[in-house]
């Protein structure tokens, strides 16, 4: 049976034959962030793929990885496209550099993991938290459990980590704060 779950009114499907994604999201459902480690290269990769991008090797193991990292870049969405997100704006889409394997195997490579910014309880982060988050913010992964065999990785501010004094934000926030207050 394919995994079929409803999430925010969207139907998400992982087909039986899509073994890599099935296993990836299945581990998430157990609260484990696991990435494929190529047998020949010894390197982790993301998102799930059918072969190692460095060697073409199809053999791999699912390695447990610590879900901690730094925001490399982001999007901050104010105009929703998908109906499910109409009540969530503004929301952030994050590109997070994992600490694990950062700068490997070459300087500009990293495991850059997607996700939204959420609160520690898993809700979409409200504007007052979003305004404090930018490039350089330290984040940690948590899982949004949607079904027995499916959870979605998300990111929350890592309150235990040392944070940059001022993460880089798109320069318009004061104006925008005024606009928000005038709503």
């Amino acid at each position: 049976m394919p995994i079929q779950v409803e999430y925010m009114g969207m139907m998400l499907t992982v087909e039986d034959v899509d073994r890599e994604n099935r296993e990836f999201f299945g581990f998430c459902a157990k609260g484990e962030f696991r990435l494929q480690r190529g047998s020949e290269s010894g390197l982790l990769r993301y998102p799930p793929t059918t072969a190692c991008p460095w060697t073409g090797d199809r053999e791999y193991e699912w390695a447990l990885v610590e879900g901690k990292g730094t925001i490399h870049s982001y999007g901050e969405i104010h105009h929703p496209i998908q109906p499910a997100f109409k009540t969530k704006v503004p929301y952030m889409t994050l590109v997070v550099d994992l600490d694990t394997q950062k700068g490997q195997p070459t300087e500009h490579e990293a495991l850059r993991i997607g996700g939204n910014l959420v609160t520690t309880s898993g809700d979409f982060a409200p504007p007052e938290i979003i305004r404090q988050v930018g490039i350089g913010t330290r984040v940690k992964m948590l899982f949004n459990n949607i079904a027995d065999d499916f959870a979605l990785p998300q990111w929350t501010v890592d309150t235990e980590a040392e944070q940059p004094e001022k993460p880089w934000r798109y320069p318009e926030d004061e104006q925008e704060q005024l606009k928000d207050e005038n709503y």
Partner: protein
Amino acid sequence: MPASTETDASTNKFLRGKYAICGIGETSYRRGSEESTRNLATWAVGNAMKDAGMKATDIDGMLSYSGNDSTFSPLIANDLGIRLNFYMDVHGGGSSTEALIGIAIGVIEAGMCNTVAIFRAMNGYSQVRIGGTGARSATPIIGDQIHHRAYGWQSAGQMFAPTFLRHMYDYGTTPEQVAAVKVAHSKHASNNPKAYYKKRYTVEDVVQSRIICKPLHLLDCCVETDNATCIIVTRLDRARDCPHPPAVIQSVVGRCSKPRGDIHLHYQTGPISTVAGHYAKNILFRNAGVGPEDIDVTGSYDAFTFTTMLQLEDYGFCKKGEGGAYVSSGAIELGGSRPNNTSGGHLCEGYTHGMNMVIENTRQLRHDVDDSCPTDKNGKKQHTYTYAEGGCRQVRNAELTANLGWAHPGTGSAMIMAKDTR
């Protein structure tokens, strides 16, 4: 094989100067076409045949591209009485135009056919919206797509935003600098009677328009329109028999990509503020035997203001990191040193997934841009080269043009064309 030797064009083995665009055709650019994509395509291909002075029997190849939102080559060929020796309908959006021109050259060179009509027909506003609302956002989310669409990360603007923001972070690029792209293209569109948006905008207009998805304001984003467009490619000797001067193809790059592309496009290998043009430029300029400094007019894809800026930078029209300064210097405006998207492009004229930028550069090389300048008794424009609102948009000495097509940050296509030397 290393690119440096494989793409060495010094022996002219890459067909430099042997093929040309001999015909171009468009429908109007509008919202609410009330026509099927099949009907739009028939109009555009028919207009291009008329422009090329060709009959149905002169065309024997057809190529089109779409994202499951359009009609098919055999239907259009049959509608127009064309018997095909070759056709193919390809999946794709931006970056397809130049890539398909390259394919057309290849199939003609292989002896498969003689002349290829390439079209893109779309109701990008009234049917399958290019911005991603409606039909596109309602499609099921399966497998790999979960890694972005489940996060509300779907439209082009949402997908590209981290790349754009990282460029601001890496190089100090400002919203005002990038807004200058819209200012320039709107200036050009004001001299294009067919443009969907003919109004001139200021930097303030752009940065004060509402945020869609940081760093994109509403006016940083292209227009959604309904239209079809067509380009006819044939051998140069044949093109010379057509009514208009040929736009001679000097080099083509098709869907050249950054390493390790993935479902999120290109994040696994940085710098993510570098786009595919960084790789494509080596093929583009070497095969054409020219450099960026030789180019008179550019057509850098403007799905967003940022895409124009990033590509001009990575193709070497300015130093890496100086794209913001370059696009805000006046260089890319009509009257500047190297105007970009002189028709108004996707930001203003209409959205065609790259076709109208190649069409415009073809017109520039013909020195017959369809602005509001008076025509002589042969119907040829008498250009004034004054770029006041509602006036001329012909570049005075346009001899060499570059098109920089964009699929996404990790994949791009490109083409250099020259005025015929005969």
